[in-house]
């Protein structure tokens, strides 16, 4: 991956976050607690996969070796994925899924809002389009955190456990590494670290309404951007990429 041009690497990260979370949410299709939830999660998944298609398309063009979004999604192995660890976490129960969505969608909304001002017109256009959809995702997650957190004893206990599990993966969202710093100088990348106060304020507001406490601070788990993933990602890819692995190049 280090051979990829910086813009391709950056677009790949954005695309991988969306792709992996989209695939995760797709696992709920037909299995969610209620029909409305099923529709919601599938719709969010669809938006995310749409984002991924655009970002991976940018990555493929920047690489200029003929790989399109499909090639990048289906013909890379686990070490080549650069998504954050949060999005690959298993769905767990509904509360755990919602906890992951809360942390990620609020981050993504802030990230895309900033990315609309990127000096790269392609990335800015995708961000401007997607940020409107992500507003809905963040609201969906926030509403459910409040409903479950300020709900019955069982739902509250599950919401607390879900947040507690996902919390350790939040810090990685805001890490600025050498690639981020380099592209920030050109105005292409955004300053993710600078989003933290706004994100904290949003999350705290939702938790307060849900009558929940912030989970205890934990040692952050990092590594996704460098391809160091949890075991979960390999299993996710084995399902997502099955068809292209079994029948390379198959088309509709």
């Amino acid at each position: 991956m280090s051979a990829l041009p910086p813009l391709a690497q950056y677009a790949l990260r954005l695309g991988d976050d969306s792709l992996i979370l989209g695939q995760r949410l797709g696992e709920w299709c037909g299995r969610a607690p209620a029909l409305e939830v099923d529709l919601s999660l599938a719709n969010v998944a669809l938006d995310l996969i749409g984002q991924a298609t655009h970002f991976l398309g940018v990555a493929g063009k920047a690489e200029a070796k003929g790989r399109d979004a499909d090639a990048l999604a289906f013909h890379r192995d686990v070490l080549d994925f650069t998504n954050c660890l949060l999005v690959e976490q298993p769905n767990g129960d509904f509360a755990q899924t919602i906890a992951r969505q809360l942390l990620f969608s609020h981050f993504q909304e802030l990230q895309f809002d900033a990315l609309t001002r990127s000096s790269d017109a392609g990335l800015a256009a995708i961000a401007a389009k997607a940020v409107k959809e992500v507003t809905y995702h963040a609201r969906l997650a926030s509403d459910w955190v409040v409903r479950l957190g300020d709900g019955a004893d069982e739902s509250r206990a599950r919401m607390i456990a879900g947040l507690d599990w996902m919390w350790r993966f939040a810090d990685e969202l805001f890490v600025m590494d050498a690639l981020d710093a380099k592209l920030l100088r050109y105005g292409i990348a955004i300053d993710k670290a600078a989003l933290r106060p706004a994100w904290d304020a949003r999350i705290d507001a939702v938790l307060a309404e849900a009558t929940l406490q912030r989970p205890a601070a934990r040692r952050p788990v990092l590594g996704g951007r460098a391809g160091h993933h949890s075991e979960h990602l390999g299993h996710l890819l084995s399902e997502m990429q099955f068809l292209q692995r079994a029948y390379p190049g198959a088309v509709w």
Partner: protein
Amino acid sequence: MAPSRIREILRRVPDPEIPALSVLDLGIVREIGAGAVIITPTYTGCPATLVIEQAIRAALDEAGFAHVAITTTLSPPWSSDWISEEGREKLRAYGIAPPPQGAGAAALKNETPATCPRCGSSDTEELSRFGSTPCKALWRCKACAEPFDRFKCH
């Protein structure tokens, strides 16, 4: 003139998910030139995007405009405000409440009550912010008790 003829052709190309609307009503045709039609997707992940492009291609080919290219642009991003007045009327007649206008932050929250497309009452409630397609939310009219779709503000 080629552009005005192309416009007439596009007026008859329906949206695959809401066939009451043409692609022109929906506001996804951004520019019509003699050599190219520029379109923009509605939702980032809308599965109809590819189908729409194919439908436009087929309609143009059939009318002798095979040389006219179709290009897609993301910027500026499509907004539900671009649905024409005629399109909003067609949505209502089809049983879908048109989206709130002014796609700013306030409208995106969809807090203004929808007007029931059947009985016209605004005594309505949102059942689910996500509906049967990416562009619709599910609502219910408390006056006539009928459920209905509302086109989401985007």
